[in-house]
């Protein structure tokens, strides 16, 4: 018996929830004021709801179908799993997107799919949905399409004309891990596809000879996702894979997804609690690499076993391992050094640089800027404040680490 739309929505959103990305930011500004259509994107993304897992719900994140010819051990939709299967027609996806959008539930669509028949057949259906939303329904909201590495170049090109973002999941941090858990996937092919996409994006950004205007092609760039904790890779390996992906393919984001137990799990994987804190630390390290001028090597060098400290954020851990670099004078230090002080973020550093041109800053000033004095006081010099021997205290770590707690047996 054919399942109702609601039943299929339940199945195909459940099947999509292991994809971490939900961003709707970073694309071009556009709206419907001139066209009289529906939809806008205004730079910053909007999270329209939050699920009790703390994740934002910005896009209608669904699969076109969860039938899949691949058998990736970590995936809920692998062919050997006995989950319920369903599929949407392209018209149904278009209808759901528009009706959800009109009620202001979502910013747009994040469409992914299991591979059915062939890569090109699947990709064609996804491109058709994006095309209909844009051209038939004048939809100007956000569209994120998951691309299929083996799909033909002309399909990727058309996808890029309609979508704000394209993404290709690298799945696991090491090629060995992919070979073991996702034997049908070819990591080299995934990276080649990312490289080709970067070249296409850059090509479109070049003004043509006829006009100064550039072609709009994947304006929000490409992203990827890695599963953390399904293979044995340590954090240093994971982060160096990220560094490689960011530098090579101009990715906007690498998402880390703590491996989460899935229904009817493969026997190749244990049922464990997802390593959420580890995932959080990886995101923090990722931020240090992208916005704070840290090298991947620096972040993980002092960490035993190449694993980030779960008790301390990676910036604090780096500071404790590199005490010779402190204290930093907030009234004189260069921006790069201020960014390395635990407790100072990019916005605070900008405020410090602006304010100190006009007056000498004291700890009180930092406090009014929203800085945690407890966190920074050991690492900074300010007007009327020097940390004295604080920086040399052997028990400095214990001032920051959470209090030890009784481990549970289970």
């Amino acid at each position, binding site marked *: 018996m054919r399942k109702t*739309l*609601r039943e299929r*929505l*339940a*199945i195909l959103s459940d099947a999509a*929830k*292991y994809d971490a990305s939900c961003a709707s930011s970073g694309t071009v500004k556009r*709206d*419907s*004021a001139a066209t*009289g*259509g529906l939809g*806008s994107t*205004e730079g910053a993304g909007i*999270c*329209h*709801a939050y*699920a*009790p*897992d*703390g*994740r*934002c*719900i910005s896009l209608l994140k669904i699969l076109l179908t969860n039938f899949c*010819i691949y*058998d990736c051990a970590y995936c809920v939709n692998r*062919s*050997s*799993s*006995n989950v319920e299967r369903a599929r949407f027609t392209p018209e149904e996806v278009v209808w*759901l997107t528009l*009706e959800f959008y*009109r*009620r*202001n539930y979502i910013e747009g669509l994040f469409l992914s799919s299991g591979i059915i028949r062939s890569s090109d057949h699947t990709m064609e259906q996804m491109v058709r949905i994006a095309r209909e939303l844009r051209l038939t329904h004048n939809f100007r909201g956000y569209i994120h399409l998951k691309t299929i590495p083996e799909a033909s170049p002309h399909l990727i090109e058309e996808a890029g004309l309609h979508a704000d973002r394209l993404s290709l999941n690298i799945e696991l941090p090491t090629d060995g891990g992919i070979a073991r858990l996702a034997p049908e996937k070819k990591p*080299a092919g995934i*990276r*080649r596809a990312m*490289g*080709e996409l*970067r*070249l296409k994006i850059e090509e479109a950004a070049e003004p043509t000879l006829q006009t100064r205007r550039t072609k709009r092609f994947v304006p929000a760039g490409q992203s990827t996702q890695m599963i953390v904790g399904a293979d044995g890779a340590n954090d240093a390996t994971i982060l160096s894979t990220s560094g*490689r992906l*960011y*530098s*090579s*393919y101009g990715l906007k984001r690498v998402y880390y997804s703590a491996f*989460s137990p899935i*229904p*009817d*799990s493969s026997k190749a994987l244990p*049922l464990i609690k*997802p390593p959420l804190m580890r995932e959080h630390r990886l995101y923090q390290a990722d931020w240090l690499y992208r916005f704070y001028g840290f*090298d991947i090597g620096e972040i993980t060098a002092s960490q035993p076993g190449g694993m980030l400290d779960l008790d301390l954020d990676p910036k604090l851990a780096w500071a404790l391992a590199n005490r010779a670099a402190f204290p930093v004078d907030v009234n004189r230090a260069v921006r790069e050094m201020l960014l390395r002080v635990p407790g100072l973020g990019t916005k605070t550093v900008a405020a410090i640089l*602006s304010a100190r*041109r*006009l007056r000498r800053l004291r700890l009180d000033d*930092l406090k*009014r*800027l929203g800085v945690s004095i407890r966190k920074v006081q050991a690492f900074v010099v300010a007007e009327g404040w020097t940390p004295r021997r604080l920086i040399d205290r052997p028990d400095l770590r214990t001032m920051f680490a959470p209090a030890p707690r009784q481990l549970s047996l289970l």
Partner: protein
Amino acid sequence: MRRVMLEGRGDFPEWRDAARDLLIAGVAPGEVEWCERDTSPGLAFEEPAFGGSAVGGAGRSGPGELAPERLAPERLVAEELALDVATVGNGSAAGSGVSGPPRVPAAFPALAAAVVCHSDPARFLLLYRLLWRLQADRRLLEVASDTDVVRANLMAKSVRRDAHKMTAFVRFKELKGGPAGGRRRFVAWFEPDHHIVARVAPFFQRRFTDMDWLIATPRGSAAWDGRTLTLDGTPCRKPDLADDADELWRTYYASIFNPARLKVKAMQAEMPKKYWRNLPEATLIPGLIANAEASLQAMAARAASEPLPYHRRIQERAARLPQPAPPPAGTLAALRQEASACTRCPLHQRATQTVCGEGPERADVMLVGEQPGDREDLAGRPFVGPAGQVFDEALAAAGIDRAGLYLTNAVKHFKYEPRGKRRVHQRPNADEVQHCRFWLAREVELVRPKLVVAMGATALFALTGMRSKLEAVRGTPMAMADGRALFVTVHPSYLLRIPDAGKRAEAVARFHEDISAAGRLAAAM
């Protein structure tokens, strides 16, 4: 003590006009009492109305339309600035404590327009004190740690956050029974903390242009009919609405939640409980939290089952798929395929792909560079990046057709150091060159060039084992170990690294001469 009475519904010009008069009259901040007309909800509560027709019962008079410039704070800012600049030299100097005509830095009107939307009654005084202090201290706003600046920034931030949450948490519900074939009509109820309806309404106008909508709040309403955005400050009462689509949305919300990742605090930080009563999905939250652990346990208890026949059919079909025939042995295609899986040195671990040579199966001239660069690594072809362009220009100057040449590199994988969003080229070491000789030697064997051109020291070393200075051997034809002619020049990327424009032009000219000389040499063979 002066008493100033304001409506206080986030109307920036209202405050601005009052503040300017006070400032010009030289009234110090301590001498003003700012008051708001009492508009506490409950006094003038009205049912929200839609284009004159009542929603959920009682009708009411149509809301007054506001002139368009009163809708967008950004436009006010520009006008305000123009006005202030215009007052310069007017001679209307303020009195005690304030010297010169009232002027403000560019950032102030935008800040003030946000702060007047705040619900804190102290906002008017705070803004006036800032305005007063700015007359003596022009750069006050840059002192982000000043007490008044901190307070104003916090208020502005709170207003912006409230406005952002409004764009996120308004939920439209469709009104049925409109005229057939007419525009679809939607109504939403929202409860903001501050006076932000006028500030946020243009966002909804830009986004939901093709439908009629009305947003009702206890702090006024906004409506759009496809032509006019209508704002009304009259407090509204919550309408009674229902929409069938909410059930689908709730289904989606429950299904997208992952019970293995329960993080209730993180959810509430971004979606505080005060918003829940107007979100159709929020009633599900307690149940989802309560059942999370149980559904995990149930998932764990169900042992992995045996795959369905579907899986076996797929596996069989995949096994039956014909594999493409390998290219015939002894061809460049076969060599390329073999090299694509090369793991002879660690460079393959970070590169995108093996970049083999490119050119006809047999070529008279083979040019060898150092290694693929960033672009070559992505495109999988040699000499397509910036150095490739320099090389192409030299070919064009010499009148040589690139298609007739075989172009390759001493090392087939890109060696680099990741640096943020870029890759910094690194020179391959002797070991890596040694390993890759295997492929270069086979390319030479297959292509059988009469002349080999080594571009740069790495190519020279790979081809001959020579570590001599490039200048010593450059431009003079030599013989390789197998008797083949060898010609040496610099690598084109070297030309890109010369900082002095004059010296670079000289070096480029010399490189062009070298390529021409190599071309003449090959033609004479």
